[in-house]
């Protein structure tokens, strides 16, 4: 059927080449095209539809940076039917993949030359990791980088090794980790992310990028505003149920905006203009 036009709903094959156990409920899957390399190009913050035929298909953020052309990575939390199946995969398993979908972060416009403040909670680090590693790759295009990352416990920090061994050792990058409750073997900060951000008290010339559970985003945004940040300086990325990924199946809209194509990245003042239904 080679004479038929390209159809976005028909996926490509992806091969899982590596499975990394990040936390008790998060695994990071490395995916390559059957001929090697990435299945398609993307920009940080964009997403892909992954599927195991017969089980289902769902949207996941691409956690690897586009500067990595050898493979794509997806950090996936086990929380439903498809993700439970994905967690059972072993290297060599094929999946289907289509994309990239969504707008991505404005790494080549709004973010350029700016001091960047990344704030993530739990699995919310996954979409931000793509931006962080992109910024690290093109280091001279951006100002200072601050990363505040928190999770329930030390064991729930995703990408902990990369954070400790790479991010923490890089000049011009400050990493602030926190966990919700005291834990044996943890001598770092304890407390919720929104409070920690306020304690740290960042300069208001920074551009902030937040991702995490909705409640964490809400309180962090309020905290940033208390510090003097304007909503136009704060970006976040959303997630709603999706089937098509291209604004046609009709379920991921917030008002007239479709998260799959108009988002998932929104500036917080733009989000304010949408009805409160997310």
């Amino acid at each position, binding site marked *: 059927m080679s004479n038929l036009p390209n*159809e976005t709903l028909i996926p490509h094959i992806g091969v899982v080449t590596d499975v990394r156990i990040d936390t008790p409920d998060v695994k990071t899957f490395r995916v390559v095209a059957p001929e090697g390399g990435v299945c398609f190009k993307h920009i940080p913050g964009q997403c892909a539809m992954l599927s195991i*035929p017969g089980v289902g298909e769902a949207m996941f953020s691409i956690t690897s940076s586009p500067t990595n052309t050898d493979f794509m990575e997806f950090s996936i939390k086990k929380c439903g039917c498809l993700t439970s199946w994905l967690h059972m995969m072993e290297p060599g398993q094929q999946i289907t993949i289509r994309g990239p979908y969504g707008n991505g972060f404005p790494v080549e416009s709004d973010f350029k030359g700016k001091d960047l403040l990344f704030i993530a909670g739990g699995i919310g680090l996954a979409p931000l990791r793509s931006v962080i590693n992109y910024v690290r790759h093109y280091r001279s295009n951006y100002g200072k980088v601050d990363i505040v990352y928190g999770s329930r416990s030390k064991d729930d920090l995703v990408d902990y090794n990369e954070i400790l061994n790479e991010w923490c050792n890089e000049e011009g990058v400050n990493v602030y980790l926190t966990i919700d409750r005291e834990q044996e073997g943890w001598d770092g900060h304890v407390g919720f992310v929104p409070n920690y951000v306020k304690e740290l008290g960042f300069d208001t010339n920074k551009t902030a990028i937040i991702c995490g559970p909705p409640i964490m985003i809400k309180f962090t945004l309020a905290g940033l505003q208390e510090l003097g940040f304007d909503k136009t300086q704060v970006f976040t990325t959303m997630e709603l149920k999706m*089937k098509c990924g291209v604004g046609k199946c009709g379920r991921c809209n917030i008002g007239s905006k479709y998260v799959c194509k108009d988002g998932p990245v929104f500036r917080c003042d733009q989000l304010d203009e949408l009805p409160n239904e997310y």
Partner: protein
Amino acid sequence: MYQIEKARLGELFARIAASGELILPVENNGTSQYGTWTPEVEVRLDRLNTVRSAKDCFFPQTENLMGFQMKGKEISIIDQRKPCEPFTVFGVRACDAASFGILDRVFLSEPVDTYYQSRRLAGTIVTLACGEPEETCFCSVFGIDAVKPGGDVSCWLTEDTLFWKSLTEKGDALTEKVKDLLTDGDEAALKAYQEKISAIHEKLPLKNLSLEGFNGDATEALFDRPEWAELSEACIGCGTCTFVCPTCQCYDIRDFDTGHGIQRFRCWDSCMYSDFTKMAGGNPRLTQKERFRQRFMHKLVYYPANNDGIYSCVGCGRCVAKCPISMNIVKVIKTLGVKNHE
């Protein structure tokens, strides 16, 4: 413009069907539904509207998208798309004909939905003017003229004559195939018929329904209106309104294990259903109020916001006639609109 005696319609249908499937309203247990013409079917052009709209012809209720073969850890994807054979839909009312333009803006915008596109390219639409509109009709509110119903060919059916007027290249091609059955049309007779039915349309009770207050910028003004609670209170979430609606286009994609491979299919879905937006992490539309609001906000505000102010309703009246609790878009417009308060 051409015409043919009503008594010879069977010959016309046979001729059209000779060069591809002919789909038209047929008798179905006391109602009419679009079905394939055969010499045996009972064609029903007398009833105003089919139970379900003509969108089925281009966006069927279920369709297979692709197949998969799973072998160990390997997957092969089977593209099952086939070129769509030419077909004709006859007897489409003006409201349904207008709905195709609304669906086109969804499915034919980039990236194009090739399943829908192939049917649109292959289908020729023959419309039929409405001589006996019902009280639930309000297409004129959306600028649709049921006296001049559009499509590739427009038809008018009087007591004894069918008038036939081609409007597009596809219409010309179809006309060419049936031309020897047609005679030159009596323009004066057609005009007289059009004037007669225009007068009926002028008297429809919902003709003056005002859409003032509904537009792409009205989200803020309408979203938090307290009336949504009362309007949606009795909604049982059956989804009938979405299934009979010619412009509802939300769909689901699911997989089915056939026993000899996986079939991925698409089927109509409804924003009125509780699991439509349900995720492992929660549901942004928790109660029927939010789902009900979504449906009407989409038709009257969100769709216009993204589509040059065009509403995603054609006033066919199917939802008005079919809702089991008698709640419908007319009541929503009357309740929340700027005018219409009785």
